[in-house]
């Protein structure tokens, strides 16, 4: 049968035998093929065209169309991240004041768990069914005589798309931020009170500083979430390509234009760079607060 227990214990104590390493080979092989190679492909191919090293692909990013899309992607992601973080943060606090194992908390966390993953085709349809030309809410608004006369706003990146993105950003914020809010110990509030502080002091001097790193971290997370999102925008916006993911998809499907695929890789690299910058900010922030943060 297998090794005797004695050889097992010796292996635990002594120099690692190659047998132990063999156990993780499948995992590393798989992730190399399906994760590391694709990532490397993007990075390398961004600088290659027709088998030659070139900066042409990266230079092609300088065109106005891409820069506008990048700017709009960043603005959209930042706005939905901030609004989502504020609204979701308030919601998380509200939920944290409910009974720990009560129905309300379970209901909201389950709902948000689903809605945070609900992006994509169905979500776009939901908003078209509500705010589109024949939508229920459009009909209400028409009856009440409020709102815009046309429903074109729904398909614009800075209006409709923004609203739709909030639909998964707010729930995501709740899921991500609730553990931090629940980590606030009641003793901290009580200690503040016995030391002579008011509720306001508690929030300003204790709760907010403690929550701040998690809040910023969650906001950055929401940013990358919106920045990477493709399906929702693709299903909602069919005419133009106002966002980077849509542009990348465009280079993918338009096989007629030669060399487009490599420009797409350059765009993908640009996305990776933006996400990497965000992660770097997060890491820096994290190190700053890890002086007192306990994990």
């Amino acid at each position, binding site marked *: 049968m297998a090794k005797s227990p004695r050889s097992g214990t010796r292996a635990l104590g002594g120099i690692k035998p190659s047998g132990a390493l063999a156990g993780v080979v499948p995992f590393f092989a798989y992730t190399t093929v399906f*994760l590391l190679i694709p990532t490397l492909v993007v990075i390398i191919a961004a600088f290659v065209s027709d088998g030659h090293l070139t900066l042409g692909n990266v230079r092609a990013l300088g065109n106005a169309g891409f820069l506008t899309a990048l700017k709009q992607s960043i603005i959209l992601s930042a706005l939905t991240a901030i609004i989502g973080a504020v609204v979701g943060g308030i919601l998380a606090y509200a939920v944290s004041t409910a009974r720990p194992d009560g129905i309300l908390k379970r209901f909201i966390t389950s709902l948000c768990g689903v809605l*945070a993953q609900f992006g994509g085709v*169905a979500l776009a*349809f939901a908003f078209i069914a509500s705010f589109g030309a024949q939508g229920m809410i459009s009909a209400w608004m028409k009856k009440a005589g409020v709102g815009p006369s046309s429903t074109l706003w729904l398909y614009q990146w800075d209006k409709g798309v923004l609203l739709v993105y*909030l639909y998964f950003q707010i729930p995501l914020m709740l899921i*991500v931020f609730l553990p931090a809010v629940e980590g606030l110990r009641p003793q901290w509030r009580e200690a503040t009170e016995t030391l002579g502080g008011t509720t306001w002091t508690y929030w300003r001097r204790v709760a907010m500083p403690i929550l701040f790193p998690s809040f910023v971290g969650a906001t950055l997370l929401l940013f*990358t*979430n919106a920045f990477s999102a493709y399906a929702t925008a693709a299903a909602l916006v069919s005419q133009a390509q106002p966002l980077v*993911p849509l542009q990348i998809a465009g280079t993918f499907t338009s096989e007629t234009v030669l060399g487009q695929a490599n420009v797409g890789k350059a765009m993908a690299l640009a996305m990776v760079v933006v996400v990497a910058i965000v992660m770097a900010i997060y890491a820096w922030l994290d190190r700053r607060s890890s002086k007192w943060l306990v994990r």
Partner: protein
Amino acid sequence: MSQRAAVRRKQAIFRWVTVSVVLAFFMLPLIGMLDFTTKVRRGGRTMATWKTLMNVSEISTKYPALKEGFIASIGLSVITVVIMLALLVPTMTWVRLRLPGMSRLVEFICLLPLTVPAIVLVVGLAPVYSWVFYLFGESTLWLGLAYVVLVLPYAYRALDAGLRAIDVKTLSEAARSLGASWFRVMWRIVLPNLRTAVLSASFLSVALVLGEFTIANLFSRRNLQVAMYQLGKSDAKISVAVGLLSLVFAFVVLFAMSFVGAQRSGSRRRRRPLAAAVAPAPAGTGSVKEPS
């Protein structure tokens, strides 16, 4: 009556107002969907769309694409879950037992997909898949290989929370001292104790696979989401109804699981694997989800 009661009442009012407002925002599009699927052109209501949806034979003859996409997505879910479990459970357990120095690296790799947008992954996967399709034939099911990467972070965290809750090392040392082989340790000791975590990881993976659009669409493969998208152009009602149905289904499952996970263990501080999986990563890597 007293100040504390007043504070509590204020808190309750704040809670209900906030929750109501946000819930209204969450519910409106869903009601919009329901409204849309039951509307008749000249006013009035019809359940025709829902009746069609409940009628399996009718839906498969009338909407072959939807059927095809649905079957593909089910197949993809199974493949993804099987590969994910076969890849992660032994590796994570093994690393805990024998190669603790590698745990950071494994964690890093598992959380890496969070920082690589799915669309970028598609770009990079294109050459890999041209080989896969060339070698193994053009089946939609091969997408499952890439989906494993997408679900990696969520599955990792769910399983990690499960492994944290039990002391794998002591348990397996106990089993080894009683003469069990490593295979038996895995099968008889580790897996039974990880039941909840495995269930959560699988559920999250299925949810993610059923909602996946980006990769399938860009590789021109038809899964459930792509079928819904295509159908949305010709018969929007049935498409919207499928979307609503899958959402309600996912909610019911998640809501039910929130009770199961909580009631089991007595210790309050033990984190539920499902919650742990969707909560933020300790290393600060984001929780970017694919289908958004």
